[in-house]
């Protein structure tokens, strides 16, 4: 605590622009207020003064009530497309607040470059929850890690807001969309900037809320509303873990802010049950938010939301919050090797498992969704083995290439939608079997999507290559020498488990290359399957959409330069390593024991293996898959065997439904509600109290039965008043 006070007092950033850090989340919040206001005022028709006076004749009501119809991305096929009356204003406010936040973040970033970054700069705004020994401040923390996250959120966020201006232009709920999107960014910034677990949790649940609202954006479709609800509830299961972790921290460390907990945690001891329990509960939270086994099931369904939402929330930012949380809690996790191995193993398993499902999806967004789950698994492998920088590095590069992939798919869907809209076709605009050969119609998207695909597959020089390689290399190195290698995990020696995780990572890399190439082949190559009439309407999206794609393409190409390995000195080495050193350096060293990374020869071999696997994956896909043989969805034959199992995602959703959801509802309804509540408790109480007691009071009984309790009540009241009054007046 003393150290904290001392460092806070003389922090080099105090008095600088960093004092204004609170504006970063506040600006998007103001955008939310403005857009939300425009949305509600344009949709609302204030009701009649007396709703009881049965008048359905209020003006302007009925089916012509056009706002927020929520039919589909580009209006309902049966209505002419009309732009929202506030579309112009919203198009400016929505992205502008993000751009301002991004600018402010850059300014703070610049201010940080020149000064010592050893201690975080904590900006305390006010005392939030002071009660008993608990003192939670509304405080934001500026340090290298939060700055990396803030730059990604505001930077990629701005691009996706711009893309949305084009993508959502004809939607009747246009202001509502931007209100939710602004609110999301605001909460996301609270999440990454919060200086304590409770403040982080505000953002954590807040982004969950916005995710819920945006997944169910077109809520009149039950499937969308279902998906939103599922996301929120599954996330809440994770939040339960997060809450319990906070309770444990407060009960044992007496603090909930990062500085306080990091100061107190070592006292609990290395590999102590307490720290392990805290970390495992935290990881339950991460598994919910970042869609890891067993809580990943909500993310594929979340694709029901508009595609830019999938790009921003369900790929680039929100779902990486779990990775951020572990990197942020590195001081805890490095004390708990068993929990770390759990994180890494679950991450590896998820990476592999989701990749297999990705092999067989037809919906272009579903492929990307499972790919996201899989890549998040990689990040958890990274932060799990104590390679916090590698995990965050992959988080950043993934934000670039996955946002690009999603927005690119958004472009494709946009084009397909327009074509279908023009020809009154009701086919599935997201099914790859209905696409094919789009490279001729959308060359820019085509090239950019290939860049992102090569990046995610791990082909050298593209961004994903460096970050994925760093994670796999770290796993390999940890298996030889680290605190993780020395403990046993459920009876398995840590080093053996790490080799297993490494193998899972490599296999997942192979599958990633295959399914991504498959997606590209089916979407952009081969003949076009959308139909004769539709082909003439296929076209590249407007510049407001392709512009952000180009920026993301450049980032996907060069993002790897952020953290070049020493082995490939094509630029400054380990920039991100150096930058994050003050936050995660000690924790990383605690895991590695300060040991050097693997020998150069081994490292070359590892890189060679990874590249060979990626190339092999792409080649396998090109050789084995024949886009020419695909038929449109409507004529497609049914799948059989393992293909059918993969297509149905191993039936996990069905399993959860049968084992968890339905039994819970059934027991609640038939055992608790009608059985226990009405059948036993109420019957007993009513019999005893309702019948027995009145009988005890003899003559009252008969009156109660005949409904004369009113008389009794009046007698009671008047009696009491009379007696008391008599005494009072005496």
């Amino acid at each position, binding site marked *: 605590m003393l150290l904290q006070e001392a460092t806070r007092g003389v922090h080099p950033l105090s008095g600088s622009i960093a004092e204004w850090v609170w504006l970063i989340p506040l600006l998007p919040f103001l955008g939310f207020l403005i857009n939300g206001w425009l949305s*509600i005022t344009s949709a609302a*028709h*204030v*009701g*009649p*003064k007396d*709703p*009881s006076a049965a008048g359905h004749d209020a003006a302007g*009501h009925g*089916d012509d*009530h056009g*706002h*927020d119809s*929520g039919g589909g991305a580009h209006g309902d096929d049966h209505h002419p497309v009309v732009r929202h009356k506030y579309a112009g204003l919203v198009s400016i406010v929505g992205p502008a607040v993000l751009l301002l936040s991004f600018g402010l973040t850059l300014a703070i970033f610049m201010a940080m470059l020149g000064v010592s970054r050893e201690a975080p700069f904590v900006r305390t705004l006010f*005392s*939030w*929850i*002071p*009660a*008993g020994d*608990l003192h939670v401040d509304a405080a934001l923390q500026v340090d290298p890690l939060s700055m990396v996250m803030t730059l990604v959120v505001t930077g990629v966020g701005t691009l996706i807001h711009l893309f949305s201006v084009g993508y959502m232009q004809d939607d009747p709920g246009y202001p509502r969309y931007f209100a939710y999107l602004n609110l999301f960014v605001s909460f996301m910034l609270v999440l990454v900037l919060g200086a304590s677990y409770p403040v982080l949790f505000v953002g954590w*649940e807040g982004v969950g809320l916005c995710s*819920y609202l945006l997944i*169910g954006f077109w809520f*009149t*479709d*039950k499937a969308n*509303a279902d998906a*939103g*609800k599922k996301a*929120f*509830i599954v996330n*809440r*299961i994770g*939040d*339960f873990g997060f*809450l*319990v972790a906070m*309770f*444990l921290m407060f009960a044992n460390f007496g603090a909930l802010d990062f500085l306080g907990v990091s100061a107190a945690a070592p006292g609990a001891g290395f590999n102590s049950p307490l720290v392990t329990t805290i970390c495992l509960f935290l990881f339950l939270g991460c598994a919910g938010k970042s869609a890891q086994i067993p809580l990943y099931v909500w993310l594929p369904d979340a694709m029901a939301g508009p595609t830019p939402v999938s790009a921003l929330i369900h790929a680039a930012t929100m779902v990486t919050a779990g990775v951020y949380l572990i990197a942020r809690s590195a001081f805890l996790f490095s004390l708990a090797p068993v929990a770390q191995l759990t994180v890494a193993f679950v991450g590896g398993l998820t990476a592999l498992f989701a990749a297999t499902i990705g092999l067989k999806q037809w919906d272009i967004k579903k492929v990307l969704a499972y790919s996201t789950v899989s890549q998040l698994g990689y990040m958890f492998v990274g932060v799990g083995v104590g390679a916090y920088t590698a995990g965050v590095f992959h988080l950043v590069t993934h934000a670039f290439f996955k946002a690009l992939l999603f927005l690119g798919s958004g472009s494709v869907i946009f084009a397909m939608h327009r074509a279908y809209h023009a020809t009154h076709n009701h086919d599935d605009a997201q099914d790859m079997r209905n696409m094919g050969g789009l490279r001729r119609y959308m060359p820019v998207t085509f090239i950019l999507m290939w860049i992102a695909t090569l990046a995610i597959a791990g082909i050298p020089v593209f961004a994903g290559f460096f970050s994925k390689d760093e994670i796999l290399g770290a796993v390999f190195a940890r298996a030889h020498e680290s605190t993780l290698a020395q403990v046993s995990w459920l009876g398995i020696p840590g080093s053996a488990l790490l080799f297993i995780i490494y193998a899972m990572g490599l296999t997942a890399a192979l599958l990633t290359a295959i399914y991504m190439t498959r997606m590209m082949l089916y979407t952009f190559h081969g003949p076009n399957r959308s139909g004769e009439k539709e082909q003439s309407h296929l076209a590249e999206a407007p510049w407001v959409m392709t512009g952000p794609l180009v920026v993301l393409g450049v980032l996907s190409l060069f993002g790897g330069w952020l953290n070049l390995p020493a082995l490939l000195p094509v630029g400054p080495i380990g920039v991100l390593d150096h930058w994050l050193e003050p936050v995660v350096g000690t924790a990383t060293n605690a895991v590695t024991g300060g040991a050097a990374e693997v020998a150069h020869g081994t490292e070359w071999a590892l890189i060679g293996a990874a590249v060979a696997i990626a190339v092999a994956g792409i080649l396998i896909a090109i050789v084995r898959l024949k886009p020419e043989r695909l038929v449109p969805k409507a004529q497609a034959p049914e799948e059989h065997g393992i293909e059918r199992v993969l297509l149905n995602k191993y039936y996990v959703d069905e399993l959860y439904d049968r084992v968890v959801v339905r039994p819970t*509802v059934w*027991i*609640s*309804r038939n055992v*608790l*509600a009608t059985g226990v*509540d*009405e059948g036993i*408790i109420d019957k007993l109480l*009513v019999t005893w109290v*309702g019948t027995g*007691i009145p009988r005890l009071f003899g003559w009252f009984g008969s009156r*109660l039965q005949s409904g004369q*309790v*009113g008389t009794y*009540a009046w007698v009671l009241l008047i009696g*009491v008043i009379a007696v*008391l009054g008599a*005494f*009072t007046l005496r």
Partner: protein
Amino acid sequence: MLAFLTSIGYESWVLPTLLALPVAAALVIVLHGSASKGEGTGGLDDAAAMFPRRITLFTFLLEFVVSIGLWWVVAPGETGFRAVVDLPWIRTWGIHFALGVDGISVMLVLLTTFIMPLVVLGGWTSVRTKLHAYHALMLILTAGMLGVFMARDLFLFYVMWEVMLVPMYFIVGIWGGARRLYAALKFFIFTMVGSLLMLVAILYLGIKAGDPATGIPNFAFDQIFAAAAQTPQGGITLSWFGIFVPGSTLLFLAFFSAFAVKVPMFPFHTWLPDAHVEAPTAGSVILASIMLKLGTYGFIRLAIPLFPAAAMSPGMRTGIIILAVIGVIYGSLVAMVQPDFKKLVAYSSVAHLGMVMLGLFALTRESVQGAMMVMIGHGLSTGALFLLIGMIYERKHSREIAAYGGIAKVVPVFATLLTIVALSSIGLPGTNGFVSEFLVMVGSFKTYPYMTTISALGVILAAAYLLWALQRIIYNPLDKPDNTHLTDLNWREIGLLIPVLFAILWLGLYPKPVLTRMEGATTSFVRRVEAGASQRAASLPRGIR
């Protein structure tokens, strides 16, 4: 502000005024009612019907304005009673008209005066019959509720406790739904039985605290507390089981029976769903927002501090905490499958109030503050939920969740407000729900980690039952034809919900002013009970510790 209040002698008259205003207004309304014989429509064009509405609204607004000063009177850090009034009332029985508020009760008084104007506005057009009686009963009810929160004399407490029972009985029984008589009767009898046991205990304590020379009992809180602390070692031996039950435990159980029914604790809760469902909107709101808090207030003000050793004896404490946690989980599960939205909210109240009981009996400073915050927060968010249900019921005449669907398209303002209020009930950070439940759980975890962890599962269930209901009401396809003609909220309805929304966000974002005002009283509650429990436990014979 305090200087101004002192200059007008605020503390000496504020509490009696708060009690007298509604009674006086009720008299005026009754007189006007007996004078006007008109059989009007009861609508907004019926002048005779508007009179009680306006008088009542005005009175409640005045009450609120008058009560606001208490915010400055009970300053942060204050531990004792303020705005104290003490007049001898019935000398031969030693009953005093003694009022006062401390950090705990002042928040509940303010909650009451804040909610009541909104309640009147909420039922502005939906109640159209016997308007004079309806409003007079609401005014009397308010006086009763405020009296309970303000009483510093045990007998006065009991009188007020009973005074509020009767108007609520009539509000449910006359203006309620189809099964209103059953519900009203059930409410009345459940509450009455509990209260009678409490009356016996109150009389016993009063006589014990009295002057043995004159034989005049004494019901002043201070004397009662002193008397309770000296409860002799006597008790009853249940010869069947060979268990010795100390006298303090018997007395505690007598209070427990009154308060546990009111809270309501599992398994004494079954009157609540019926009462909520059948009551008119105003009845539901008052029940949920204020009357349930009277039970938990009884625990924190009387039952626990009077008999700390009995309440905090390992068996009793663990038993009550288990019941509280069952209430959280069971209430949520049963809420999930209710087809009737009002019933769903009623069961969610069982869950929320279980959280309060957990916080009170976990007995840490954080958990007790949290319990108080849940009491206030539940009053706001559940009250608002019932108001919203009432508004849509007034249009569609159905509380069945299945009767709606997709109406966010038709009534966007209603949908927006319902969503915000539901989120606060779910405990979303940024709303009061999070701060309060977080405090309860983070505090209770220190003393009852496993029980608290189980209750935290309620966080998941709360999201499940409310979001599922929300989806079936405002989302999904708009497939019922008559729903396309629903009219959105009018300015009165929007206007009355705005203050609640403001309070919900305020308590979620900046609860400090409320927390610091309650801190003194809750801390001294915890200290007193801890001391009492350990002291008494030490003095008890070994066998029954």
